[in-house]
């Protein structure tokens, strides 16, 4: 599926996925501002929902990474929220999910890749972080590197493939069977969108927690 370019901004060709992402960002900013402008100690219904969402995200992250959960929470929670919205966006007629674009999913996967190293180095330091690639044996270094690359690639391809295939299947059924026929597929789309957002975010969380906990494991070994 080719990127659909909407307009050019100087040397940059802005695609529909980017435009949709901007829309999501704008909506997120506006909704966040509206939801958090009157926070009170005695929460109303909207504040209760907002706090419930944030608490659920924090608890899910803390369950995997209890020590540094608060540090990685903005990244992982944003991944979940963005992917849920982006995946479900294609249910609105006329809009397309940005995650059906390989460039978008690759960008998210690369961000995960770099964030793993970023948090690992930030928490433990460069030397000690890089040392875990040689553990338990330096012979495993190539396999560690291959693992890092392949899992990043898998993240990008998995999300892209699932979302693109769902949209394409719904489109084909709509073309072949007519109006209302793809409704079951769209319901499956909802589940799949949520599942894919959860899988992507959870894998990113596990990768981050793995990097952080490997440092903790090394530290405990040294102690």
């Amino acid at each position: 599926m080719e990127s659909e370019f909407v307009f050019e901004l100087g040397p940059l060709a802005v695609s529909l996925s980017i435009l949709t992402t901007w829309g999501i960002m704008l909506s997120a900013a506006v909704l966040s501002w509206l939801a958090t402008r009157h926070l009170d100690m005695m929460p109303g219904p909207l504040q209760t929902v907002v706090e419930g969402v944030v608490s659920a995200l924090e608890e899910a992250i803390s369950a995997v990474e209890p020590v540094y959960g608060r540090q990685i929470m903005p990244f992982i929670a944003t991944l979940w929220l963005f992917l849920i919205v982006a995946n479900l966006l294609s249910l609105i007629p006329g809009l397309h999910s940005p995650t059906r674009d390989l460039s978008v999913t690759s960008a998210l996967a690369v961000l995960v890749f770099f964030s793993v190293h970023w948090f690992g180095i930030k928490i433990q330091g460069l030397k000690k972080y890089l040392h875990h690639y040689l553990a338990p044996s330096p012979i495993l270094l190539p396999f560690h590197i291959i693992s890092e690359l392949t899992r990043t690639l898998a993240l990008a391809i998995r999300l892209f493939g699932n979302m693109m295939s769902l949209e394409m299947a719904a489109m084909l059924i709509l073309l072949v069977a007519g109006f209302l026929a793809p409704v079951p597929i769209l319901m499956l789309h909802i589940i799949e969108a949520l599942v894919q957002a959860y899988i992507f975010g959870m894998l990113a969380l596990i990768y981050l927690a793995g990097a952080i906990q490997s440092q903790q494991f090394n530290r405990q070994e040294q102690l």
Partner: protein
Amino acid sequence: MEFNFTTFALEIANFLILIWILQRLFYKPVLAVIARRKQHIDQTLADAQKLRQEAEDLRQHYENRQNEWEKEKQAAFGVLRREIEAERKTQMDQLQADLEQERQKAKVILSRQQHDIQRQAEEKALQNGARFASLVLRQSAGPELEARLCAMLLEHFNELPEECKRCLKMLDAEKSVSILITSAYPLPDELRQKLEQKLGALIDRPDVFHYAQDAELIAGLRIDIGAWVLHANLQHELAGFAEIDHGSD
């Protein structure tokens, strides 16, 4: 499936900006209010725990005080009971003493009443006896009895104690003494002379004798010498008989 580097790069930038936006506008305020609420709840819980601890301390304190009060109360009760017992014993002893005193008093009063009754009865009996004797003597008395009483009087003059004789001599020596001799029956002259001679010897002073008659004397004489009165008659003897009991008291 086409990879576009511009989209890739812009998406990375967009996502980083989105993280910043959500961190600033969503996560941070919401987590802050949750933290504030949690802190408030923790503070409330701590205050409640503190209040509970204070209440527990107060409860313990008051229980201790209550126990102390109970002990003090028991001790006070013991003291009070002993005081009441002692006071009761004192009161009982006092009551027993009062009762004994009242009993003795009643006994004395009863004894006195009995004695009075007995005395009254005796007096009554003596009076009756005297009245009866008086009636009998009034019917049986006569000049002979009176003469016999006069003879007894004259003999009695010889046996007067010295003190009486001295008293009779100490009467006003300058004046003459008026002597009234009262009899139940007319005195014979011989008896009058004996009386005047005997009385003149006792008084040893000029004297004037007068004679009178009084049937109430039954028999015998009454001699008035100034302030002195000598009785030798049955009336006086019966009156003395009736007053024997008074004299014995």
